[in-house]
């Protein structure tokens, strides 16, 4: 199949599939060893689809970072203590 400029031109040793499904998280969280990192970058340099993929994956990470734990109901600790004490009384 003839490739366009916007297709992947990286060699087959690191495929887009391997890069995206198996390596991307380690690349993003910094746990990937330096040599593998270089292979990763080499692929990216020759692969416009993976560049685009990386951008939206990173944007997903940024979006998820905006989510914060829910506001805790006021007096939740008191409610828990009352609940447990009431159950204890009931079971006596």
């Amino acid at each position: 199949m003839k490739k366009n400029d916007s297709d992947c031109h990286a060699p087959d040793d690191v495929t887009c599939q391997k890069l995206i499904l198996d390596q991307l998280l380690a690349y993003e969280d910094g746990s990937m060893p330096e040599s593998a990192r270089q292979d990763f970058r080499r692929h990216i340099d020759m692969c416009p689809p993976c560049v685009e993929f990386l951008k939206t994956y990173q944007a997903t990470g940024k979006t998820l970072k905006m989510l914060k734990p829910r506001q805790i109901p006021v007096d939740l600790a008191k409610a828990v203590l009352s609940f447990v004490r009431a159950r204890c009384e009931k079971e006596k």
Partner: protein
Amino acid sequence: MSAEPEPSDLELVRGIKAGDDQAFEQMVDRYHSRVYSLAYGVLRNSEDAEEATQDAFWTLYRKIGTFDESRKFFSWFYRVALNAAYSRARRRPAIPTVAIEEYLPKFRSDGHMLAPDVRDWSVAVEDEVAARELAARAEGFIAELPPAYRDVIWMYDVEEMPADQIAETLEISIPAFKSRLHRARLYVRQRLSEVTRGAAQEKVAG
């Protein structure tokens, strides 16, 4: 005068085992927020999450004698908390979850991609209003995930729990944790891509 050092989890556990009410109060004080948030991730409803929190502490109170002190307390108790939330979730009508594999990126038979698989919407996160909307959608997408993926992404990306604590609580390996987290994020990415594509099309049409 130096302040009294905070008792460790294990000291509180031993206090509760010995019937010390104050130790139980301190444990509630220390863990109620985290337990509530964990439960909320499963139940997505404040009232249910509050009741699951009460259930979790009631189980803690009754079952503390079974806690093996060679284990870490938090992983035992988070497991108790998740079970309390799962138990409440089972009492409600089941919410259908997605088949995550169907949303993972597709590749050619040689493992490469041709053109980009989705439109690049990454610029949207630079705009605060758009980013907040996307975050709200992302929270909904997390809720659609099968529990094994939902709990991992919720605990890591929203609760910001350390990876090793999550793996220990869920009794899975670190590689399994990473695999689930990555697939959950890929799912959220795919769904956000669909939402942003829909919004772009509406703009063109409108």
